């Protein structure tokens, strides 16, 4: 209690100093929340790509490649070490969207069902059921999309102008599947065809279309090696092992993370300079009090502890308010983004505890110099100070 009373002796100054830390923590929390969410998406991607080789048309790059022929499946499964190949067709949910958003775009993915039993992490449904072979005219919705479309199991939804029955809603994964409509490959091929200019439709064999083929390795076969041998034996395709995704996205994430945390840390450092300033002034103003404390028996350590504790309280107060404000800002931004289905921020426990802990640590560190100065004051000089 005494510590808190001392901090608020000069209310305006205390609030301003705390506010300095608050802004730093706010920056750390909001930007960290974005980094956390993106990291989670990437982790999800790494897990998704972790056990398979992704085959796309050699002209394409990324998952949304040019069309690939389903007939390649036979060829791919013949490659030494391959256990199973499964075709999927992915497209943007909204054909007008450019796909240039941050985070994960809303997607339609049609799969042929051949991957079942080979995926290491299969999606589970929170409600309803998963897709089955032979399904037609039905979809399974990712949890975010289900919320956005206000969909329920058993009801109809409109996807790219066609009606589908919702048979399942997946569990929340906090990554790509939350934003995905899953359907059979045939249904997806139909939607794809709808989108092609009429003049060209005749030349396209819809039943042959897919955008990527996932190849699962046999037990004991390294997917990276499988990717290499597929690349060597099958023509007209690009085969990427799990590491390709990690390298491509992971390194970008590292840069992104350092920029984001760098900015937040700089603002926190500025805040901590103001704590040092405040504590130094506070020590100067209380010189006589320090003299009296020493005269009545305060040890070096007792004076140190007193001022470091006050500084820690400033850090803690700034941390708590910054965290609260950050949570409010994140909630507001997410609410704004919810309309377009992109929840870009997420405050994890690790981020919350870390920000608060860092603010307290910063307070303590900022307090050390002023506290040392106070503790080293000569009692006689301090008592003479007016």
């Amino acid at each position, binding site marked *: 209690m005494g510590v808190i009373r001392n901090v608020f002796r000069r209310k305006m100054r205390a609030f301003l100093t705390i506010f300095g830390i608050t802004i730093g923590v706010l920056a750390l929390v909001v930007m960290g929340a974005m980094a956390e969410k993106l990291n989670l998406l990437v982790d999800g991607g790494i897990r998704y790509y972790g056990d398979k080789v992704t085959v796309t048309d050699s002209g394409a790059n990324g998952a949304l490649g040019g069309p690939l022929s389903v007939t390649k499946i036979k060829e791919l499964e013949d490659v030494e070490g391959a256990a199973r190949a499964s075709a999927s067709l992915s497209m943007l949910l909204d054909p007008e969207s450019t796909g240039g958003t941050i985070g994960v775009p809303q997607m339609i993915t049609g799969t042929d069902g051949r991957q079942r039993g080979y995926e290491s992490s299969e999606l589970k449904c929170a409600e309803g059921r998963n897709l089955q072979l032979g399904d037609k005219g039905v979809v399974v919705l990712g949890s975010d999309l289900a919320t956005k479309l206000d969909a329920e199991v058993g009801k109809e939804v409109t996807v790219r102008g066609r009606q589908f029955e919702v048979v399942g809603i997946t569990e929340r994964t906090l990554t790509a599947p939350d934003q995905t409509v899953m359907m059979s490959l045939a249904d997806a091929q139909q939607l794809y065809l709808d989108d092609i200019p009429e003049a060209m439709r005749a030349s396209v064999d819809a039943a042959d279309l897919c955008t990527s083929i996932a190849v699962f390795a046999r037990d004991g076969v390294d997917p990276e090696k499988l990717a290499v041998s597929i690349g060597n034996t099958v023509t007209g395709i690009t085969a990427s092992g799990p590491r390709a995704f990690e390298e491509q996205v992971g390194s970008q994430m590292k840069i992104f993370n350092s920029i984001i945390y760098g900015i937040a840390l700089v603002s926190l450092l500025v805040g901590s300079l103001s704590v040092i300033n405040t504590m130094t002034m506070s020590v100067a103003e209380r010189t006589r009090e320090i003299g009296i404390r020493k005269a*009545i028996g305060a*040890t070096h350590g007792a004076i140190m502890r007193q001022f470091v504790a006050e500084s820690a309280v400033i850090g803690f107060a700034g941390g708590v308010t910054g965290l609260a404000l950050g949570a409010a800002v994140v909630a507001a931004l997410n609410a704004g983004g919810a309309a377009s289905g992109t929840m870009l921020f997420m405050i994890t426990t690790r981020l919350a505890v870390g920000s608060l802990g860092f603010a307290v640590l910063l307070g303590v560190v900022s307090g050390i110099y002023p506290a040392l100065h106070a503790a080293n004051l000569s009692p*006689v000089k301090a*008592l003479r100070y007016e």
Partner: protein
Amino acid sequence: MLGSMSSYTLATSDRHRQLTAPTRDPKNGSSTRAVLTANTAGAKAEKTRATRMNGPVIEVRNLVKRYRLGKNNHVHALRGASLRVEAGEMVAIVGPSGSGKSTMMHLIGCLDTPDSGDVIINGRRTGGLKGRELTTLRSTEVGFIFQGFNLVPTMTALENVALAAEYAGLPRRASRARAADLLELVGIADRAGHLPSELSGGQQQRVAIARALINRPSIVFGDEPTGDLDTATSDEIISVMRTINRETGTTFVLVTHNPEVAEACDRTIRMRDGRVEDDERPARVATIA
């Protein structure tokens, strides 16, 4: 006053009576004194008490202290001052500004160290003690009362008094209990929960006296203890100190400009130019020792 004094004794003495009972001297008349001299550490208390019985509580020999104001510019605060204070005395140190009386008090009170000469407190030479040992000596052997703005402004009267005991290592609860007894002793138990800004100057000085006494020191130093007070309040404070001195045998050394303070004391030491000029001992001192 006397009534509350003995209640303080009864309230706090059980543990300390055990510590001091074997050496209690009925002729010296001081179970109260035994209570106030017993320290938190029992062994130290025994030692303190033993030495106190045998010699002067303060002995100062040829103290020299210079303060550096700037390059080649020193002030000679003390130029070989000596004095002796016997246990249980109440002594005033008077003298013009710059005579070295405050420096003398700081040196005896272990707030500072002399350039040369000896300070001996209860038979213990303070020269050569390290900072931490001086702090311990300060918190257990001496108490201080300063002029005005003496208390920590963000702490209540009770917390201010207890603080000194906490610094000496007494747990918080025990410190507060003892602080409450002492506030009663100085007659302001009803103001225990008030901040210094809510107390009158006289009440603040009473809190400071209680704080000075809480670690049961053998010596209490006052630096202009009545400095900021009006005459009536000043008289009250003098009387509180005088009573405590008589009842407990705690030695008081008061640096003062106030002739009334000097008059109330057993003895007046006059200082001038860093030396003890005159050491006057009124007749009635005989009845004290």
